[in-house]
C-alpha cells in the first residue's frame, strides 16, 4: 500500500478536505532490535482529535510502533528507528529533537496501571511539579485532571492517601489523569483496558470519547470489539514472513470492519486466525 492511497483512505469519511488535520504522521518507519527488524515500512496518518486504533495479532509490532511516537524505545538499548514520524510537521525521530518536550506533548497510558507509590495527589502533581509550576497552578490542574477522568468525586476526600489503595480501574484512570496534567496534545494508549474488568473498561472507553474532543488518541488493542466500539480509524497490522510487523490496511474503522479491502484483514476480523 502506498502513501498516497493511504491518505485517500483517511480522507474518505470526512466531508471537507480542509477539515482534516493530521496530527501525527508516521512515514515508512522501520524499527530494529539489534539485527532483528520488528517493523517494516509502517506508515500511519493520525488525525487530530480522533481515535486511531492499532489492531493485529500478538507480536505484530503494534506496541513497538506506538512506543516510537514518543521515543519510549530510546530506553531499550540496541534499538533503532528509521523513517519519519512527524508531529505537527516536526520529525520526532530526528536526533536533535528535545525528547523531554516531546514526551510532554505526547503522553502515554500503559497496559498495566502504574501509579507511583505516592499519594493520589502527588501522582497527578508529579508532571506539573517537574515543569516547575506554582503550588496554586498545580493544585488547580490536579483537580481539573481528576475531574476530567471522573475520579474527583471518588477521591477528593482522600487525596493524601496512597494511590496503591485504589482499585485497578481507578488506578488506570489516575494514570490517565497524571498524563493529562501536563497538558499533552496526543495520548498513546497501550492496551489500557487489558487488565481491567468490563465495567472499568467501559469507563475508560467512555472517557476516551470525552477526551477526543480535546486530544488526539492512538490506542493499541488486541480486542477487536473495543477497536470497533471506540475508534474512528483502524490500522490492521500483521507480521510478514520475516517476522517484521507491517501495516496491512488502514482506514476508517467502519470500512476496516465492514468492507476490508485486504483478504488478510477480512480473515482476521472474521476470526479466521489470530
Amino acid at each position: 500500500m502506498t502513501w498516497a492511497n493511504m491518505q485517500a483512505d483517511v480522507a474518505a469519511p470526512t466531508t471537507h478536505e480542509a477539515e482534516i488535520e493530521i496530527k501525527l504522521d508516521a512515514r515508512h518507519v522501520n524499527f530494529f532490535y539489534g539485527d532483528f527488524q520488528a517493523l517494516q515500512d509502517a506508515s500511519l496518518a493520525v488525525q487530530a482529535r480522533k481515535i486511531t486504533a492499532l489492531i493485529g495479532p500478538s507480536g505484530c509490532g503494534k506496541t513497538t510502533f506506538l512506543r516510537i511516537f514518543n521515543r519510549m524505545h530510546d530506553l531499550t538499548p540496541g534499538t533503532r528507528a528509521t523513517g519519519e514520524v512527524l508531529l505537527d510537521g516536526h520529525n520526532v525521530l530526528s536526533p536533535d529533537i528535545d525528547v523531554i518536550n516531546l514526551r510532554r506533548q505526547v503522553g502515554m497510558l500503559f497496559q498495566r496501571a502504574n501509579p507511583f507509590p505516592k499519594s493520589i495527589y502527588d501522582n497527578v502533581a508529579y508532571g506539573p511539579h517537574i515543569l516547575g509550576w506554582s503550588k496554586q497552578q498545580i493544585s488547580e490542574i490536579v483537580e481539573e485532571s481528576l475531574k476530567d477522568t471522573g475520579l474527583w468525586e471518588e477521591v477528593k476526600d482522600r487525596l493524601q492517601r496512597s494511590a496503591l489503595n485504589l482499585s485497578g480501574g481507578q488506578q488506570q484512570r489516575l494514570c490517565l489523569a497524571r498524563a493529562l496534567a501536563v497538558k499533552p496534545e496526543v495520548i498513546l494508549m497501550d492496551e489500557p483496558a487489558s487488565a481491567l474488568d468490563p465495567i472499568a473498561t467501559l469507563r475508560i472507553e467512555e472517557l476516551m470519547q470525552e477526551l477526543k474532543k480535546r486530544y488526539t488518541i492512538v490506542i493499541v488493542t488486541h480486542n477487536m470489539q473495543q477497536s470497533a466500539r471506540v475508534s474512528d480509524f483502524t490500522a490492521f497490522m500483521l507480521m510478514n514472513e520475516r517476522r517484521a510487523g507491517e501495516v496491512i490496511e488502514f482506514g476508517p474503522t467502519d470500512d476496516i470492519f465492514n468492507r476490508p479491502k485486504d483478504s488478510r484483514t477480512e480473515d482476521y476480523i472474521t476470526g479466521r486466525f489470530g
Partner: protein
Amino acid sequence: MSRLLTRVLLDRFVSALIVLSVMLAAIPVLVLLLFVLIKGLPGMLAPGFFTSPPHPVGVPGGGVFNAIIGTLEIVGIGSLLAVPFGTLVGIFLSEYGRNRIGDTVRFVSDVLTGLPSIAFGIFGYTVLVATLHHFSAVSASVALAVLMLPVVLRATETALVLVPQSMREAGLALGAPRWRVTIEVIVPAALGGIVTGALLAMARAAGETAPLLFTALGNDFTQVNPLQPMGALALTVFKNALLPYSDLQDQAWAAALLLVLMVAVTNILARVYVRRIQR
C-alpha cells in the same frame, strides 16, 4: 481412592517436612536469643551497668558506659561514611550500571563481601593507625565503613532493581528527565529495601570485633574524641569473657545482650518509619 490417599499422604509428608525445616532453622536462633537473655539479664540489671565505665578488678559496680558511647560513635561515623556513598553507588549500579564499569564495581564489591573481617582491621591499621602513629576510633570507623560498603550498595541495587520498569517508563513518559525519575520516584519506591540494607550493614558493623582490635584498641575510660582509642561493646564482650571474674563475665553477657537489643530496636524503629512514610 488409592491415588487420592497417596496424594493426601504426600501432601501431609511434605507439609510436615516444611514445618520441620522451619523449626530447625528457627530453634537455634531462638535458643541463642533466650540464652543471651538469661545470661545477660543479671549483668544488665546490676547497678551502674549503663551509667558508669568499668571499675578496677575487685571493685564492685562498674559498667559499660564507655563502650556504649564507643559503639554508637564508631558505628555512627562509619555509617555516615558508608551509607550515603554506598547508596549512591547502588543507585548507579541499578540505574546506569548495565555496562563494564558496573560489572567491575559489582565484582569488587562481591570480593569485599567475602573478605574476613580481620582484614578490614588490618586495612584500618595500615591506612590510619600506622600513618598517624596512634590508635583511634576514627580508624575503626573507616575499617567498618569499608566492611559496610558492599552490603549497603548491593542491598540498594537489589531494592532498586525490584522497582518495576513500568514505574520508570511512567515517569519518563510524563517528560521527566531520567535523573529526576530516579531520585523522586524510583528511590522512594525502594526506600524500604534501601533502609533495611543500611540497617543490616550497621548491625553487622556493630557486632564486629576483629576490625576494632587494631584500630579502636579499646579504652576503659569514657572517651568521645574520635582521634583517641575507644571502647566498644563488642570489645567488652571479647575482653571480659576471657577474664576469670564472674562479675566481669556477667558484664560480657550483658554487653552482648545490649548489642542484640540495640540492633533489634533500630530495626523496629526503621520499619515503623518506612511504613509510615510509604502510606
